[in-house]
């Protein structure tokens, strides 16, 4: 689907600065352009809310508050890292799928299932010794996310049901499942609103500042692990081969169906870990409206990072800072936090249109944002053999 070409031998010999520019130019330009569009949106939205004098500098106020909220002081930086953590893991999940030519839009549902698995085991082991409780709750979250990724992978492999539609449908099912369990068997008895008990000892320890939990370290480790898996193991080679050309991979003796199932399951595990981190590290209990924007954000992260596991880190940091600073922006500049969604959407639109961008800006030797490989299959596509 998106199969960013590996650096050609010629480009590997060029100086490091040139190589970084060739990879990072499009994401950087796209981000700057989106901030400009965001500024226009802010100016335009002033017109929609009558009764106040028109302030041409409002975009600067808003972006200033956004930066203040995400990097103004130690606590703000730690909060940015906390917001970034699930985006790294979710971004890795989506990027990992892309490498095998699979588009996992189900990170949202797998995230919720991961949180659900973590809260079920975490509450049950709330009084157990912390290391045991944490490891068990984490495992449960990862497994639950993995199951939610296995289902679309399995369906794709055996019947050809397109993973895009089945994962989206599973997102909705996950919301209902979560609501049913939290307002049913998991609910604190006689509580006025549906909420679970706290996970107690299964909570992640704080490692940085007052809110920076263990998940921050886990996310960085996961990025390294995914990079190693993809580029240093046979399995990773097979995944990338299937992603580039399933038929050739099959003739080379690989089994695309198995790879599809394994990739989706592992992708689900990563997204499940993202949910686990938010639950054990931030919320510690679950309400029936436990929701997230991590699913959509992860797609943006993976696309911006060009599916590169290391690139996921800065891409996630970008969106993490936006999410972390959006609250202050709403208070200081009276701009709804949803502006972040607008920025994200414009970033994605510019990325897809990046061939045009490259032509307009006369960028040479720069890789496209999202490469068109022309391998979109019909939604009821044929079975990957």
């Amino acid at each position, binding site marked *: *689907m*998106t199969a960013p070409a590996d650096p050609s031998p010629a480009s590997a010999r060029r100086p490091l600065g040139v190589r970084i520019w060739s990879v990072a130019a499009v994401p950087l330009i796209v981000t700057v352009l989106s901030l400009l569009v965001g500024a226009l*949106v802010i100016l335009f*939205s002033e017109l*929609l*809310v009558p009764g106040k004098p028109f302030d041409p500098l409002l975009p600067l106020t808003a972006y200033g508050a956004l930066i203040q909220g995400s990097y103004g002081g130690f606590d703000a930086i730690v909060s940015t890292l906390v917001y970034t953590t699930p985006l790294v893991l979710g971004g890795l999940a989506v990027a990992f799928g892309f490498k095998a030519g699979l*588009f996992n*839009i189900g990170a949202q549902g797998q995230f919720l299932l991961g949180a659900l698995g973590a809260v079920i085991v975490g509450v049950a082991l709330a009084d157990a010794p912390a290391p045991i409780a944490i490891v068990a709750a984490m495992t449960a979250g990862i497994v639950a996310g993995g199951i939610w990724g296995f*289902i679309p992978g399995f*369906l794709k492999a*055996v*019947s*050809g*049901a*397109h993973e*895009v*539609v*089945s994962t*989206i*449908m*599973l997102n*909705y*099912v996950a919301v*209902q*499942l979560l*609501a*049913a369990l939290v*307002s*049913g068997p998991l609910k604190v008895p006689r509580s006025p609103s549906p909420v679970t008990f706290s996970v107690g000892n299964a909570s992640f320890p704080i490692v940085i500042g007052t809110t920076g939990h263990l998940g921050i370290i886990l996310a960085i480790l996961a990025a390294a692990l995914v990079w190693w898996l993809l580029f240093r193991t046979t399995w990773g080679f097979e995944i990338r081969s299937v992603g580039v050309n399933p038929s050739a991979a099959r003739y080379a003796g690989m089994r695309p169906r198995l790879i599809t199932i394994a990739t989706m399951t592992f992708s689900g595990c990563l997204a499940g870990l993202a949910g686990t981190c938010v639950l054990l590290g931030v919320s510690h209990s679950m309400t029936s409206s436990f929701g997230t924007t991590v699913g*959509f954000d992860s*797609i*943006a992260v993976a*696309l911006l990072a060009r599916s590169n596991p290391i690139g996921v880190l800065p891409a996630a940091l970008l969106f993490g800072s936006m999410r972390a600073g959006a609250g202050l922006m709403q208070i200081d500049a009276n701009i*709804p936090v*949803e*502006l972040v*969604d*607008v920025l*994200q*959407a*414009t970033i*994605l*639109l510019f*990325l*897809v*249109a990046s*061939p*045009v961008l490259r032509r307009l800006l006369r960028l040479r030797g720069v890789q496209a944002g*999202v490469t*068109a*490989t*022309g*391998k*979109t*299959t*019909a*939604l*009821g*596509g044929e*079975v990957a053999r």
Partner: protein
Amino acid sequence: MDLGAFINGLYGIPVLGVILQAAGYLVAVIPPNAPNIMQQATPLALAALCGVLCERSGVVNIGIEGTMLASAFTAWVVGVVVQPFFGAPDSSGLFGITMPLLIALAAAILVAMAISTLHAWLSISLRADQIISGTIINIAAAGLTGYLNQLISRNSPAGAGEFARFVPPHGLTDLPVIGWIVAMFTNQGPISISVIFLVVGTQVWLFRSRWGLRTRAVGEHPRAAETVGIDVIRLRYRNVIVGGMFAGLAGAFLSIEATNSFQQNMTGGRGFIALAAMIMGRWTPIGSFGAALLFATFLQLGQLINIAPPSGELGSIMATVPPQLFDALPYILTIVILAGVVGRSIPPAADGQPYEREAAT
């Protein structure tokens, strides 16, 4: 033995009894609720028509969900904005049609066409990945409408009202056996009533007209179509944009016919369910409409079971099931249909493949 006692006897048999009770429940609740089921089916059927038009010409459009959402928002907002210019609404006419509503409807369709043009440009001209293009449209629509909705709803403005339902004469709806079917298709607002005509019209158009024949040719074998002089690129653009009009209608239905409001993400996955309906209907308009009715029945059943729970043994079984299961049923059904039917239904051969003209020699 009279019939009632006989049926009660049948109900006493385990399993079979429950199945019979379920069938009896459906027979009892579906006819009186048929107009509501049609209300649920309307956006699904229109979105599925959009899918049929796109995919028959070889373009996969999973951005239908976002297109619907954007046009639902547009219809509502344009209604809010233009309403003050027309004074007190006179909604006593047929369908409660007022000028602001018509302008809102037109705006919704225009926005949907614009978004479809974007998708066409990305996927046909730039040959970008069509799934990614569609997904980005979905994300962008959710983000923009969410943001603008937050801004606008601060003043909690009143919308322009909604289209009224036509009330068919009692003589027709009280007819035995078919009365409820008449009510189902006629006790509706204008968009909903038009669905049946649009479905039949598209069916005829797709299989009986020159444009339809060319559409199918381009979707199956674009190279061959080009050889006989069909402009593949232009035809795909046209189909995607016309399909967008249907998605715009579906969106407008949600915000100015079914309700008079806009809620964040109010499409609730209908654009994707519609794609499953399209696949189940084997890429034909009438088949898609039938599938949309099936999904709509499931969507409506979830509410019915809460309002009018079945009695007897079936009722006691239902009571133990969490209500969220019924809300999840349409989505589960979509997955099952995708997984089960796909093997037997064959998409247009060139579906999802960008077309590149051969270099002129």
